[in-house]
């Protein structure tokens, strides 16, 4: 039996019997409900087959899995997703057979709040203008 092992954010693993071909597929994602992604990015890693199909159900769309990757690579970097819950499923091919889809625990994306973002951006602007203003003023004074 396939034992598809899914774990998220290093928070442990859950197993799911999902196929008919002997072997094990491991999938690891770098964000979860406990440790949400704050910038819309996460990395998925998997292993255990010859070829893989990865599908992603991104937040903000109808709950439909869309093809994300098919091939022999063992990792994919996801970015640019909005707030919400993303779901990832992976199946692997070994010999002539494919496993059934194994759905990973949900990946939670929770961007920083706009107040915090604009506050830090504003702070950055003030710091930059202070530096630029100081140098421009003092350089002119020194030249004069």
């Amino acid at each position, binding site marked *: 039996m396939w034992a598809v092992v899914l774990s998220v954010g290093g928070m442990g693993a859950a197993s799911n019997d999902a196929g008919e071909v002997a072997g094990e597929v491991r999938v690891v994602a770098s964000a979860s409900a406990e440790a949400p992604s704050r*910038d819309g*990015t996460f990395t998925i890693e998997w292993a255990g087959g010859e070829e893989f199909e990865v599908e992603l159900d991104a937040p903000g769309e109808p709950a439909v899995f869309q093809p994300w990757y098919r091939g022999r690579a063992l990792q994919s*970097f996801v*970015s*640019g997703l909005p707030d919400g819950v993303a779901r990832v499923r992976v199946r692997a091919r070994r010999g002539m057979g494919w496993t059934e889809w194994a759905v990973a625990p949900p990946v939670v994306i929770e961007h920083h709040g706009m107040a915090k973002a604009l506050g830090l951006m504003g*702070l*950055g602007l003030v*710091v930059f203008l202070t530096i630029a203003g100081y140098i421009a003023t*003092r350089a002119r004074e020194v030249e004069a």
Partner: protein
Amino acid sequence: MTETQLPVSWGLSLLLAFSVLWVALGVRLGRRSQSIEGFTVAGRNVGLALGAATAAATWITSNTVMLAPQFALQLGVWGMLAYATASFGLLLFAPLSDRIRKLMPRGYTSAEFVRLRHGRVAHLVFMAISLFYGLTWLVSMAIAGGILLETLSGIPYVVGMTVILATCVIYTLVGGMFAVIGTDFIQTVIILVGVVLVGVWVLGEAPAHEVHAALVERRPMLLDLAFPAALMALFNNLLFGIGEIFHSNVWWSRAFAFREGVASRAYMFGALLWLPIPVAAGFLGLAAPALGINVVRPDTVGPMVAAAVLGPAGAVIIFIVVFCSLASSIDSLLAATGDLLTHEVIKPALDRGLLSRFAPGQDDEGRLRRAASLVILGLGLATWVVCWPWDQSGPGPWYEGDPVGSLATILFFAGPLVASAIGPIMTGLYSRRGSETGVVLALSLGTVAGLIAYFWLGWYTAALVGAAVSLTITLIDQVSTEPRFDWAALNPSESPS
């Protein structure tokens, strides 16, 4: 990993050819580097063309080739612009460099300025920051170089990393600052032509409307102007760039090396030359989804896209661009960090007679010159040891078992350290006010606050918070102290030569 675009034999041939070229140029250009003055500051006579080229080339690091596309892929259009704001560091350093040259006509290092201007305790803190940053940058580039060459051509990581490092150590050792600046000029031309060529080529393969459509469908936040992390990153990267340039001896040593009146114009031209590079490189990151490329590591997306889309010819160009950008930065770091250790650690020890048995047959200048060479050799060896994949699971200790650690998260850890130096450096150059306690507090509390932000908010906020805290402390110190500093103290009569 994806399959490589170049056969190993091609990669090794290119690696060998360019290694021989740089070493030969280094030997030829470095004939005038026999004295310590020639070796460390190129005789203080570098003109405008070489000056602008070395400023641009040193700022076009492997980090530009790798991080600009990563910023675009991770933080979208804002991220691409955020990376380009690093040119403000060069622009703002332009007036400072003239001031440095004027105040310290016989100066050698940024740490020397901090020692003379702010005192010995501030000097110790600053040296710790400078060395940590310099070594982080050096090691990160050697690791990045090894990974990139392996990704592009299948050259084993250890071979690529070792050859790049050895090449840079040899020509820097032989030619000193003359070789570093001279090779920078040629490397700048190659990088500019290569990156623009690849950018235009990829734009032809992935037209802007297709890139836009793919991003809207699969990665919508990358086009969102209200992308919180990207908004935070905008000024963070700008301030990181300013901090890197203001504090680092890489840039100070050039200010000392430029002919009088050249420095500010050289840095301004350098900034303008550099500006289009991250935009062109960043486009590669945005194009990845449209081209259906699976990105394995975000920091290798640029070279992966170029190599995948353009095939072997594109891979050859990227290979050469990467090698040039690595060499132009590694040689500068070796030279500048070597100067820092030679002038701030070895020279005081020699002056106090602590190294009386070192090179006994030579005069002071000869001993210092020999020490400078040994320091560069030692730095190269130390970097090589750190970059060696001891655990055999991946390149370098930073990559051990960490599937999401990237060049950005590694490099930006140094963000608060360097950003906290902005205030003390700029006020130190223009104001006679300020206390040593204020400078030490600004450097240390800025660093601590930035590191807290790194872990609490994200890597894209650390430099911003560090700079804000440090600048606030610096300005309070400025208004609460008397203008007592004597500028003449920055130009002591004795000089090593």
